[in-house]
């Protein structure tokens, strides 16, 4: 009695249990459910408002919110889900009807469905709603899931000039080249665009024109448009099950209202741009308001008597969803924000979303008189807002691309979502759940509670600080003193560097030992980049009364650039009085051929403080 297994699905006891528990919660939904029946429900908190009824990541449903409808298609009080499925990659359009978690029926569609709608066509009993699918230039109407009627959009009037030209071509009064020129002229400035036939013709090469004209001249030219969006509008009663008209938005920037029984065009309105989303309230025969979000980023408001838009909202962004909540329009823009407007186009509020909005729909909980907006975001959240207050966040394993809320099976408050990867998620709102404002984020941002990441200071730093306080003046003068010392060192040639570029030399002398014999090491370095130095001589100038050196004069081997050459010699101190003196070291370059004597630096001196050492 609860569950009649579909003939196509010869299964499953588990499924049956599942259904019983899920779709008839009053039978015991609050009992603990076996978790294995409900795979992958990551966020099943006890406090959650939602019951995870079903999740099938492989449901293979790819669609938009406009193609999702919940309806009691058979009039048995058991609501089904109608999906106009685009198929993977938009390749296999299908009409799917789901009952519970299973597909009840599936039939291929001739073209991709742009929108689906369910509506009552007439007052007859039994009151089963008809299903309308807009696809290409046609609306396919089903009753009891059987094809019932196909409505095609009326042809658009062709450009009379164009018509004329083709008529002439038909009678061979005009040659293809002239035809082409004339058509070009029409395209340049005409109000009415050319037909596909003419446009194709204009693309052709000269050689193909003749054949094309002959092939097509007998046909009358046509202009056909397609449906971009569809919604329903009550005819003359506000009841839930009152007869409704279909409202179509077309690619040629028009809105059409169709008669529910005869499928004739009751009203026609034109828009400045192509409508993408429609939102209607009121009754066609009494008064209605129509909001159309268009491709130029504007939303146009129309009323019953207006053939043209009465108000216009310029979003300066593309609308990605349009929902009417009571008397307020909520628009999601592709700049990640929700805006709300009155019917006269006055902006009420704006809420920023954390990620791009993918789809939007209305959440209506009649028992509590709640109307809220649901927005599926690219970060895998579905946010629910009443006005600008966040009521709830539903987190899903994949980004939700279409969603709807309403009665499904026999459960009044069901949220149906399909994901980017083709998954299907069904959640049920707990009967005890109450949406409270601030259910999402409130108060100061969480970052405010976080500690500042301060750089720490070490003990060493503190010690240095203290030292600076004590010896600040010294530190301040450090640079000056260092500069002075350096200048002095330069002046006294303690560690001389050759001043001329011709002999790039560096000389550095070290004295080692305690005496009376010392070792004097000269470090010679050729500082040029590439050129070796040959034929250098070193001589020592010293007080012969104090010191004795084995050789006061010797030749230096070839100096390779960059290398450090230590040259050692011994120095014997002759005096026993502890006197010290200076030994001067000279470097001279003997050039081949002539004896050019040039000095390297200032004649480096070694301050050999030998006596000082021995005096100790």
């Amino acid at each position, binding site marked *: 009695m609860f569950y009649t297994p579909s003939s196509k699905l010869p299964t499953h006891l588990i499924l049956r249990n599942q259904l019983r528990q899920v779709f008839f919660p009053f039978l015991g939904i609050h009992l603990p459910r076996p978790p294995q029946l409900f795979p992958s429900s990551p966020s099943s908190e006890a406090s959650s408002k939602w019951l995870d009824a079903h999740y099938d990541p492989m449901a293979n449903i790819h669609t938009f919110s406009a193609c999702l409808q919940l309806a009691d298609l058979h009039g048995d009080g058991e609501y089904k889900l109608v999906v106009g499925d685009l198929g993977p990659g938009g390749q296999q359009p299908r009409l799917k009807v789901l009952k519970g978690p299973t597909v009840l029926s599936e039939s291929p569609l001739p073209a991709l469905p742009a929108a689906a709608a369910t509506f009552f066509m007439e007052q007859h009993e039994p009151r089963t709603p008809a299903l309308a699918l807009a696809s290409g230039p046609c609306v396919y109407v089903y009753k009891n899931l059987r*094809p019932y009627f*196909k409505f095609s959009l009326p042809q658009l009037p062709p450009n009379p000039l164009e018509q004329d030209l083709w008529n002439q071509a038909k009678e061979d009064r005009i040659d293809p080249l002239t035809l082409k020129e004339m058509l070009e002229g029409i395209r340049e*400035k005409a109000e009415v665009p050319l037909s*596909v036939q003419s446009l194709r013709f204009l693309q052709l090469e000269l050689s193909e024109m003749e054949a094309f004209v002959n092939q097509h001249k007998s*046909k009358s030219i046509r202009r056909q448009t*397609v449906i971009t969006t569809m919604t329903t509008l009550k005819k003359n009663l506000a009841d839930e099950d009152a007869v409704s008209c279909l409202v179509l938005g077309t690619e040629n920037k028009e809105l059409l209202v169709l008669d529910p029984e005869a499928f004739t065009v009751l009203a026609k309105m034109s828009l400045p741009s192509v409508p993408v989303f429609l939102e209607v309230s009121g009754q066609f025969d009494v008064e209605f308001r129509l909001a159309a979000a268009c491709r130029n980023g504007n939303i146009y408001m129309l009323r019953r008597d207006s053939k043209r838009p009465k108000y216009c909202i310029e979003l300066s962004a593309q609308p990605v969803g349009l929902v009417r909540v009571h008397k307020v329009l909520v628009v999601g823009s592709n700049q990640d924000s929700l805006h709300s407007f009155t019917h006269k186009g006055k902006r009420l509020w704006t809420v920023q979303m954390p990620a791009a909005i993918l789809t939007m729909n209305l959440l209506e909980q009649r028992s509590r008189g709640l109307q809220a907006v649901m927005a599926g975001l690219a970060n895998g959240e579905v946010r629910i807002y009443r006005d600008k207050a966040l009521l709830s966040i539903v987190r899903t394993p994949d980004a939700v691309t279409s969603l709807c809320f309403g009665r499904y099976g026999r459960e009044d408050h069901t949220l149906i979502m399909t994901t980017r990867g083709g998954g299907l998620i069904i959640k049920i709102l707990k009967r005890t759940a109450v949406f409270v404002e601030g259910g999402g984020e409130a108060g100061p941002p969480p*970052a405010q509670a976080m500690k500042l990441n301060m750089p720490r200071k070490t003990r060493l*730093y503190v010690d240095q600080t203290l030292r*600076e306080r004590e010896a600040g003046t010294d530190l301040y003068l450090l640079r000056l003193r260092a500069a002075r010392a350096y200048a002095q060192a330069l002046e006294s040639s303690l560690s001389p560097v050759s001043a001329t570029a011709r002999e790039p030399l560096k000389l550095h002398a070290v004295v080692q030992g305690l005496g009376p014999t010392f070792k004097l090491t000269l470090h010679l370095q050729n500082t040029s980049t590439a050129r070796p130095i040959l034929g250098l001589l070193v001589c020592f100038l010293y007080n012969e009364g104090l010191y004795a050196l084995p050789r006061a004069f010797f030749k230096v081997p070839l100096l390779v650039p960059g290398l450090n050459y230590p040259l050692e010699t011994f120095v014997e101190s002759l005096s026993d009085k502890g006197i010290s003196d200076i030994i001067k070291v000279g470097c001279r370059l003997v050039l081949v051929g002539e004896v050019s004597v040039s000095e390297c630096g200032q004649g480096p001196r070694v301050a050999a403080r030998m006596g000082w050492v021995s005096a100790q």
Partner: protein
Amino acid sequence: MAEQRLEMRTQFPASAESLKPRLKKAPEFPILEKQNWLIHLHYIRKDYEACKDVIREQLQETQGLCEYAIYVQALICRLEGNIQESLELFQTCAVLSPQSADNLKQVARSLFLLGKHKAATEVYNEAAKLNQKDWEICHNLGVCYIYLKQLDKAQDQLHNALHLNRHDLTYIMLGKIHLLEGDLDKAIEIYKKAVEFSPENTELLTTLGLLYLQLGIYQKAFEHLGNALTYDPTNYKAILAAGSMMQTHGDFDVALTKYRIVACAVPESPPLWNNIGMCFFGKKKYVAAISCLKRANYLAPFDWKILYNLGLVHLTMQQYASAFHFLSAAINFQPKMGELYMLLAVALTNLEDTENARRAYTEAVRLDKCNPLVNLNYAVLLYNQGEERGALAQYQEMEKKVNLLKDSSSLEFDPEMVETAQKLGAALQVGEALVWTKPVKDPKSKQRTTSTSKAASFQQPLGSNQALGQAMSSAAAYRKLPSGVGGTSQLTKPPSLPLEPEPTVEAQPLTEASAQIREK
């Protein structure tokens, strides 16, 4: 297509039968716009891969005649950064339907993004001929003219745009023009109107708040910044500005909590760490202050304000060598500010380099126009050096400045400064000059006066916190200098703490904000 129809028939036997003789379509030609709606839906959901697939299919089927498919492809190209390619595609669209203003608008937009503003204006003008009443055209024309430096034309176009339809963006651009012209009042007018029109736009609120701050109208500034923070509690600019105002009032803890939000969002912001550092300075946590300021300095090594603050904190810490180092660095970046030289002189005095200190003072006095502290400190130095005549001259100079400030507003002077000045006056035997509107009431300072001999008290100030207090108020004075207006109210708030850091801090987010405004 014929096959398709056949298929359709089989699927819809009922509908096919129930239909009256259907209007036949030209079978060879699919409808060009067949999948435009799908392309659009994929596009607005930012599912560009799927979008491109549909476009490719559609273009193949229609042999490249589907204008909307090309249009969206161009839009995606532009989003992906291939602007040149998008330009070419839009031009193709414009060929396919030459009467469409939208195509021209996009061509112009691509030109604009390529930096060809002149060409863009021409195309926009072309588009404007097709569609007279499009705010977007006017707005974008205005923006182009801004880049072409034709501000008058830009203003006209933006006003036209506002006339057609009001948008926040237009207000922002218009305000920017006024800021570029340096007309703060007009800019404020514009932003006021904008906030009236769109009271929840945080960017508008923040900018207006910052402008008020720049003019020194703190009440209104705080109001608008507060509003901005109500709508977006994580707004970086608003938090920094509001935080700096809180610092001004000594609410260091509140300011710090607010800064935490920013520290989370923008952890590498030099002004933020500067402000945090000065908060700690206000709370007398000097080591923390120095760490934060050093981080700020690391992040923005060429910002003289951070260096200024570092100098100030190091002076307080009696690390005069470091202070000297930072202050001289600051002077290298900002050689036109008297206060900097004065602080440098204070550091030099403490480093016992009186000769250089004096030279720094000379420079400070030469550059500074209205801060009496510079002259007072100089006078003290001269007096300590035994040059009473020079000291007297500086003292008189200071009195002049004080009188000037007093005339222009009813302000209170830093009590420490007043006290020092009075003592110096006595020492110089100028007599109790009645320049000070308010007698000193600080009991502590009185004690100090009595406890130390006059000469000693004069030798002390420059090394003590007293001098720093003066330095602070001098910094306070700096705050108003650039604005020119109300340059006198600077001393209205006697620092409640001896060390009040707010002025430099406040200058910080301000300039940053104005820099940001200019950038846009």
